[in-house]
C-alpha cells in the first residue's frame, strides 16, 4: 500500500494503543492528528517509567534521583538539536508550547531588536498563534504588521512577498512552514534568501511541517524555528524554540523566576546563560522525557519512510474525495502535505464533522484557528482531515464512503 519498503503501517499502529478503540461500536478512524497526534507506547512508557522509578526536580539536585532525572530530561535538548540539525544543544529553548515559543520571540526579540516603525511580515495563512502575538506587539510597541497575501491556489504570493520587503523596513518575517488548513508548504529556502537580502530575520512556525518533513535549520538558513510537542506524537505542555546563539544571547529574558538567573539580589539580578535564561521555573520534566521518547520513536522510523507514506495517503485522499460530487478540496498548492480541508455542498462543516463522528471518524471542523485565512477563502469553516504516520489508505476509504453517505443524506 505504501511506497517505502521498510514501512509497515499495521505494525506501527500496534505501537499506538488508542487506535484499537472503537467509537459507538465502530472502529476508531482518527483523522485529526493535525490538531494533536496520538501517543506511541514508547512515550506512554517513558513518562510512566519516570514517575514510577526515576523522578525528582532537576538542576542542582545533588542527589541520585535529581541527577538522573536531570540527565533524562536534558537529553531532550540533544534529541531536538539532532532532529532539526541545530549547531548546538544550547540553542534549544524548551517552552510550554509553540504558542509560548512565538510569544517569547514576540515579547523578547520584538521589544528589543525591533524598533517602533519597523515591520513584521506574516502571511495570509497563519495560525492565530502567529498572528495575535504580533498584533499585541504592534499595539504595545508600535511596529507595523504586514501580511503577505496568498494566491487562489493557496500558495504564498512570492511577488507580493518581495514587494512587501522592498522598503527595508521589515525586521522579521514570521511565517508558517506548512499551513494547518491548506497543507501548503511554504518555499522556506527562497523565503530566507529574499528576506535576508532585504535585511530581515526569518522565523518559521514549524508546528505542522516538522511532523511531515525533515527540517534542517542550517540548510534552511533561517534564524528562528519553533514547534510543539503534542503534534509530534509527544505529550502536551511542551514546545521548543531554536534560534541562533548570538540572537538568543542578545535577547532579554521573557519570564523571570528560578533556574533562569545567575544571581539575584533585590536590587538587581543577572541572567543565566542561554538557553536557561528563557526557561524560568521548574521545567516540563515529564514532558521533556516524553518528547524525547517521541522523537526517538519518530526518528527510528525516519522521515523518508514517513514522508513517502504520507505522500501516498495524500494523493489517495485527494483522488477519493475529488470523486465525490459536492465535495470541494480547499487549496491546491504544488507542494503540499497530509492536511486536507474540504467543504460539502449544502452541508455545514460542523454537521459534516458530527455526522462523520457518528460513524467513528474523527475530523476537525471550524476555522482551525486561522480566521483571516477563512475570510480570504470566503468561508466560515471547513472540515479537515489530517494524517499521521499511523493513518491507513483504508481509513481514507472509510472517510470517502461516509462522505458519500452524508452527501446523499443532505441532498
Amino acid at each position, binding site marked *: 500500500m505504501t511506497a517505502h519498503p521498510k514501512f509497515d503501517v499495521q505494525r506501527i499502529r500496534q505501537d499506538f494503543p488508542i487506535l484499537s478503540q472503537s467509537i459507538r461500536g465502530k472502529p476508531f478512524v482518527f483523522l485529526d492528528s493535525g490538531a494533536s497526534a496520538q501517543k506511541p507506547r514508547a512515550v506512554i512508557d517513558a513518562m510512566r517509567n519516570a514517575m514510577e522509578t526515576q523522578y525528582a526536580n532537576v538542576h542542582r539536585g545533588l542527589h541520585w534521583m535529581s541527577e538522573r532525572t536531570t540527565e533524562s530530561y536534558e537529553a531532550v535538548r540533544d534529541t531536538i538539536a539532532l532532529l532539526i540539525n541545530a549547531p548546538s544543544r544550547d540553542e534549544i529553548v524548551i517552552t510550554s508550547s509553540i504558542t509560548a515559543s512565538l510569544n517569547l520571540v514576540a515579547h523578547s526579540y520584538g521589544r528589543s531588536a525591533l524598533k517602533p516603525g519597523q515591520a513584521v511580515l506574516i502571511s495570509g495563512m497563519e495560525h492565530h498563534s502567529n498572528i495575535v502575538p504580533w498584533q499585541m506587539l504592534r499595539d504595545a510597541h508600535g511596529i507595523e504588521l504586514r501580511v503577505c497575501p496568498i494566491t487562489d491556489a493557496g500558495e504564498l504570493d512570492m511577488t507580493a512577498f518581495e514587494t512587501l520587503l522592498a522598503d527595508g523596513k521589515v525586521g522579521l518575517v514570521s511565517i508558517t512552514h506548512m499551513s494547518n488548513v491548506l497543507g501548503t508548504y511554504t518555499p522556506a529556502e527562497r523565503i530566507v534568501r529574499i528576506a535576508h537580502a532585504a535585511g530581515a530575520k526569518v522565523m518559521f512556525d514549524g508546528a505542522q511541517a516538522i511532523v511531515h518533513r525533515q527540517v534542517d535549520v542550517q540548510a534552511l538558513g533561517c534564524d528562528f524555528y519553533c514547534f510543539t510537542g503534542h503534534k509530534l506524537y509527544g505529550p502536551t505542555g511542551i514546545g521548543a524554540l531554536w534560534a541562533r546563539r548570538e540572537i538568543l544571547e542578545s535577547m532579554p529574558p521573557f519570564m523571570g523566576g528560578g533556574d533562569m538567573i545567575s544571581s539575584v539580589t533585590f536590587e538587581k539580578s543577572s541572567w543565566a546563560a542561554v538557553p536557561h535564561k528563557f526557561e524560568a521555573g521548574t521545567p516540563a520534566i515529564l514532558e521533556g522525557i516524553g518528547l524525547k521518547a517521541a522523537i526517538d520513536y519518530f526518528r527510528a522510523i525516519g522521515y523518508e519512510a514517513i514522508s513517502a507514506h504520507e505522500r501516498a495517503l495524500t494523493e489517495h485522499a485527494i483522488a477519493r474525495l475529488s470523486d465525490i460530487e459536492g465535495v470541494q478540496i480547499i487549496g491546491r498548492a504544488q507542494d503540499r502535505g497530509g492536511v486536507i480541508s474540504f467543504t460539502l455542498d449544502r*452541508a455545514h462543516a460542523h454537521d459534516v464533522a458530527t455526522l462523520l463522528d457518528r460513524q467513528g471518524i474523527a475530523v476537525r471542523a471550524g476555522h482551525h484557528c486561522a480566521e483571516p485565512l477563512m475570510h480570504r477563502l470566503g468561508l466560515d469553516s471547513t472540515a479537515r482531515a489530517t494524517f499521521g504516520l499511523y493513518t491507513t489508505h483504508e481509513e481514507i476509504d472509510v472517510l470517502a464512503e461516509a462522505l458519500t453517505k452524508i452527501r446523499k443524506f443532505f441532498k
Partner: protein
Amino acid sequence: MSFDDLRDLYQGVIMDHGRHPRHGTRLQSFDVTAKGDNPMCGDRVQIWLKYAPDHTIADAGFEARGCAISIASADLMADVVRGRSPADTKALFDAFRAMVRTGICPDHAGDLADPLEKLKPLLGVHEYPSRVKCATLAWHALTAALEGVQEGSSE
C-alpha cells in the same frame, strides 16, 4: 445504504427544519429584534418578534447562517414561543438548555411539557457539549430581544 447511524442525532425533524425552516424570514412588522453571533463557529442569527396586545409573543421570525442544528433549533424555537409571555419563554429556555446539556427531558414539566416534546429532537446534542451553543444561539438572541438588548450572548 442505511442512514440509521446518522439518523439518531440528525432526525428527520432536524434535517427538515434545518433545511426548510418555516419561520426563516424577517418579520415585516415587528416590535423588537436582536442578533446572536458565535464567532467560534461562524454561526449568526437575527430574531424579530411581534408582541400581541397582552405582550405575549404573537409572531417570531429569524434569519440565520449556520449548521443544521442551529437553524433547526431557531425554527423550532420560533414555533414553540408563539403565544408565550416573556417570563414563560425564559422558563422554557432554561428547561431546554438543561435538556440539551444533560440529555434528559424533564418528566414533569407541567406547562412546558408540550413545547419540550417538540424540542426533544435536539436532545441528542448533549453528546457534543461544544455544539450545545449551536442549539442555544437563537434562544440567546431571543432572550436579548425580550430584554431589549441588541446582541445576545452565547454559551
